[in-house]
């Protein structure tokens, strides 16, 4: 298979270079990440604007979580530049809300959902909360956001006893209560039933658009997100591409990314499926 140069640059957004990087929430230029001797991804050129809802998709191990870690300042680039909200990524950025990959809470975790959300607001501050008007105002903020994620009715129960979907609402509220400008979610739908896999992204989209929050959501299945997503970042075989779903998730684009013949089929409900990957896994192409 002959090598195709510059797989990512200029593929979808030809006007990328004209954008002023300070207007962008996320900007990657010729970026690469190397762990030990393995290059995770290379030649990444990605721009995300404020208020966009972007899904990050790709096979396991392609480096989706690595992308989030770079944006959080937990992972350095081996090449290229990255800017988040106009600055170099650093830890403890209060403008970024983060929901890491996680299993559910232990069943006997003796904390209420309400406490988890409050931690998002003031878990960083030393000391302990003194009762008074300031505390009262914070409680009201917590109540408001619990109302918007529709979790107020079970906010006082031990969080370990709630279902995956219920817990996820509190986790989301915790990330959003600080009014972040960028929200990063790593596989938030992994342990959820189908109903919640559709409901949670819609909830996220509703809350994010209210404040023009930019969202990057890592997932392995694009389909529940198709109704709400603006752009898709697809990472495969070290290549990263960004564009609208109908431009990225096509037979053409994905075959180029995977450097192998894969096909994208659309069923009668409009859902997208990538076929041909099993062949690729069984008989990887040399190049």
């Amino acid at each position, binding site marked *: 298979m002959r090598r195709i140069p510059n797989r990512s640059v200029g593929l979808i957004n030809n006007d990328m270079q004209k954008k002023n990087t300070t207007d962008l929430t996320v900007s990657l230029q010729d970026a690469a990440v190397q762990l030990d001797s393995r290059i995770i991804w290379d030649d990444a050129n990605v721009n995300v604007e404020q208020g966009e809802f972007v899904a990050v998709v790709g096979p396991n191990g392609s480096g989706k979580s690595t992308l989030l870690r770079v944006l959080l300042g937990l992972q350095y680039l081996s090449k290229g530049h990255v800017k988040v909200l106009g600055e170099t990524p650093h*830890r403890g950025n*209060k403008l970024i809300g*983060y929901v890491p990959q996680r299993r559910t809470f232990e069943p006997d975790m*003796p904390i209420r959902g309400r406490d988890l959300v409050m*931690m998002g607001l003031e878990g960083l*501050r*030393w000391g302990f909360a003194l009762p008074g008007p300031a505390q009262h105002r914070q409680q009201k903020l917590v109540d408001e956001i619990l109302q918007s994620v529709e979790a107020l009715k079970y906010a006082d*129960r031990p969080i370990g006893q709630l279902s995956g979907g219920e817990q996820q609402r509190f986790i989301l509220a915790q990330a959003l209560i600080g009014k972040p400008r960028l929200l990063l979610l790593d596989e938030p739908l992994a342990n959820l039933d189908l109903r919640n896999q559709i409901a949670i992204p819609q909830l996220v989209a509703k809350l994010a658009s209210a404040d023009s929050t930019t969202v990057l959501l890592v997932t392995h299945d694009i389909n529940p997100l198709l109704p709400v997503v603006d752009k898709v970042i697809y990472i495969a075989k070290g290549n990263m591409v960004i564009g609208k779903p109908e431009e990225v998730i096509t037979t053409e684009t994905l075959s180029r990314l995977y450097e192998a013949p894969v096909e994208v089929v659309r069923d009668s409900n409009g859902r997208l499926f990538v076929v041909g990957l099993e062949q690729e896994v069984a008989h990887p192409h040399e190049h």
Partner: protein
Amino acid sequence: MGVYHLMATINPLSSLKNLIPNLTIRGTGFSWNLVADVLAQFQYAFMQHAYMAGIIVAVVAGIVGYFVVLRSLSFAGHALSHIGFAGATGAVALGVNPIYGLLVFTVGAAMGMGFMGKRIYGRDVVIGIVLAWTLGLGVLFLSLYTGYATEAYALLFGEILGISQADVIVTLIAGVVTLIAMAIMFRPLLFASVDGDVAEARGVPVRLLSILFMVVLAISVSEAVQVVGVLLIFALLVTPPAIAERLTAHPIKAIGLSVLLAILFTCIGLFISFYLPYPVSFFITTLAFITYLVVRLWAYVRQRFTKLTSEAV
């Protein structure tokens, strides 16, 4: 007085006669006027010291213990007390006050454990092996001291009735330091304990808090050893918060309840031991255990009852 008490209680089963409680063993009888009883007990300096030290230790254990349970450090806390035993007996063998040996060893081990952070989970085999060895070390140091099994008894099982006024002051200072540290760490420590990954991403110094908390735990364990001894540390450090968190998920209420229970177990245990010739730590641990059983049983019964009524509908 303390040593005599110890000698009398080391062999309570030596004859059947001793099983029958002699309610006037300490000269004053039990009456149903509890206030008068407490006042009578307070005539004795050793009882005053016992109550004071006991309450301070109970408050600290109730608060620190809540986080021990939350962070799944029960076994590490247990290991610290055993390591402390080796330190204390080593100090005695060197002719130094055992509390210093206790503190040095526990704080040192605590910093090591805190530094390991998350890697300490699932390492109970390693911890168990280390603490078994430190107990053996303790026995060695004891034999070097050519002495007193009573010293060992006090360290292993607590000797709250042998606490001097100086000991109370040391306990108070250590207690105040511990409480101030916990007050400062409270919010970030709770965040890091419940939601470590998110806390770290938000900039909470998770590793530093881990080390600081382990040091606070080491100091609390050293204090609590005076009351219940090395082997029974769980009674004050783990059982009260374990009971509290079954009853409420509100963090502040759970801590308050944990402190209250620890104080109750300690004080009631002390009160009873004035009249019955058995070790104080036995009463404290038994009260704690019974309360835990009752709470578990009640939760089980309630669960079955709601199942029955919902099935009936």
